[in-house]
């Protein structure tokens, strides 16, 4: 069912780092670093959510795109991380302990869910994981002493080894508000997770996951321990989701069960589908697009004045969002990563006259 555009690992092709090639990435880094100081407070908030979404999308893509296990339960693992973080924060745990718990517990749950995944395929698995979302919301309500139940629970700002994300104070001569701090924390987490997944995909374990995804029996006959890698994918992905949830919850400041509804899972699936299965870059692009798009669309809708009456603009924004989603998937099934790859190919071809890799 899953269709992954194509092999993305390309190392060993002996690419030379030419200055022209570094220009783009360097510009991007500068832009990312400068962004919080030039953006309005609202767009900075959107950017923080985008960066957090990127981590979440990456971790889901590891499971779905690389390991081929469709999960609609991502919101659950994000939620576990967030609630563990809230609990730890309220009980004065230190940062390393909180991180350990917020990553470890979801990972452990992922490991426990894994065996179910071993038996089920595709949509059966997907819908079973959907059950996790409901179970999660039930747990929150049933154990309201710990979770705050339906009325929710506050979270605390993270104190990353002395760098308190919650304060707003100058650092390095720059106005580091809470938003700016969370922005950088989220960027760092996304970069870390993205780097880890990229590394995974170009090394033995990642390759094994992809082999299991494409052809399970052939992979096992070639020596891949299928069980092990399926469990590993679930565990690692869940752990990463936990870390994402920790940051997400802490930034939100307050957790309510609705924060981790099915809708969130679906939003994340939309990110990786639109971004591109099995693609690090795609996950990030998809996360940014899906998070920022509704905001952009509300702006568009608001500025078309005839809509501005009777709150119709909001409905139109939602309709536009749905339409955009449908149209995008119809016309670009390989996702943003596909577009990117094509664009990049065009650029490189012009730059270095490389012929397109011919098959025969």
């Amino acid at each position, binding site marked *: 069912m899953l*269709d*992954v555009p*194509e*092999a993305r690992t390309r190392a060993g092709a002996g690419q030379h780092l030419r200055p022209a090639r570094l220009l783009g990435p360097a510009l991007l880094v500068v832009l990312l670093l400068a962004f919080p100081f030039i953006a309005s407070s609202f767009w900075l908030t959107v950017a923080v959510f985008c960066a957090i979404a990127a981590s979440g999308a990456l971790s889901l893509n590891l499971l779905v795109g690389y390991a081929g296990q469709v999960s609609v339960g991502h919101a659950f693992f994000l939620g576990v991380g967030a609630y563990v973080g809230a609990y730890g924060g309220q009980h004065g745990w230190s940062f390393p302990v909180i991180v350990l718990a917020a990553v470890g517990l979801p990972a452990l749950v992922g490991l426990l869910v894994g065996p179910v995944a071993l038996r089920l395929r595709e949509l059966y698995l997907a819908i079973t994981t959907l059950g996790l979302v409901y179970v999660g919301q039930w747990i929150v309500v049933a154990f309201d002493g710990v979770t705050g139940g339906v009325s929710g629970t506050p979270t605390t700002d993270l104190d990353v080894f002395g760098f308190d994300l919650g304060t707003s104070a100058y650092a390095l001569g720059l106005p580091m508000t809470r938003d700016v701090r969370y922005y950088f924390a989220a960027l760092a987490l996304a970069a870390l997770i993205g780097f880890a997944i990229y590394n995974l995909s170009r090394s033995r374990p990642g390759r*094994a996951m992809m082999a299991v995804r494409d052809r399970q029996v052939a992979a096992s006959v*070639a*020596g891949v321990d299928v069980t092990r890698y399926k469990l590993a994918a679930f565990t690692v992905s869940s752990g990463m989701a936990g870390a994402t949830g920790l940051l997400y919850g802490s930034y939100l400041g307050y957790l309510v069960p609705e924060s981790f509804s099915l809708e969130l899972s679906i939003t994340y699936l939309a990110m990786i589908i639109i971004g591109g299965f099995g693609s690090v870059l795609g996950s990030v692009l998809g996360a940014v697009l899906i998070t920022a798009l509704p905001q952009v669309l509300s702006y568009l809708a608001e500025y078309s004045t005839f809509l501005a009456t009777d709150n119709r603009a909001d409905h139109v924004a939602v309709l536009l969002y749905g339409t955009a989603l449908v149209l995008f998937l119809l016309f670009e099934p390989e996702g943003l990563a596909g577009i990117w790859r094509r664009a990049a190919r065009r650029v490189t071809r012009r730059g270095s006259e490389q012929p397109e890799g011919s098959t025969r």
Partner: protein
Amino acid sequence: MSETPNARRLHITGLGLQFAGLRALDDVGFTVEPGELRALIGPNGAGKSSLLNCLSGVYRPSAGTISYGDTVLNGMQPHRIAGLGIARVFQNVELFDKLSVRQNVLLGRHLAMRTGVLAGMAWYGRAAREEREQREKVLHYLEYCGLADIAETTVENLSYGVKKRVEYARALAMEPTLMLLDEPVAGMNESESVEMADLVRSMHQDLGISIVVVEHDMRFVMSLAERVAVLDFGRLIADDVPQTVINDPAVRRAYLGEHAA
């Protein structure tokens, strides 16, 4: 190719396999000596692929034992059997469609590598080093199978014949001591099957690998095999040198018809 594999004796006795009332294998037993090139023939549905599936751990036999050297394979999981040096090439192409040719072949090196999930994520120390080393190594197999030019191509869009070669490269990369081949020349034209026969022969002779090959192309079988086992309705009806087997009236009746090479 660098190290000489130590092929062991494959010994099958009393093997049985059932599917919902169907006896796919019934009391099958034969031995493949180390370094032997053994053909396995028989009518469609006789149980040849099923036998290979038992050998590689994909099916669990209901009776009998399979031993490779001193190790009993019954009940072992496929990846453990692979770890003993048994590689398999499938009847239908079973490649990892979305990966490049190189990645497919690198997967054959899976057992020779050590990097775990965490190390892989960190890309630190062994992970990177190992990956680099194995890429070198794999290049060798890619060249051996004539795939070096298309190493970065996604296998999905390759034509049938090339895909088969990728499968061989992947199996070879496992540096096996025993290779199980299921219909290697099906769907190939005459000149291609001659090439394939050369490849199999050289694997056998240069590398000393034991080979069990299932094939319906009798020209191929006759030109290669040292011994031939014949299955019919899950039972072993002959097991001998090629010349004897093709003259066996039972074999002719069940399988060959008037075609004797």
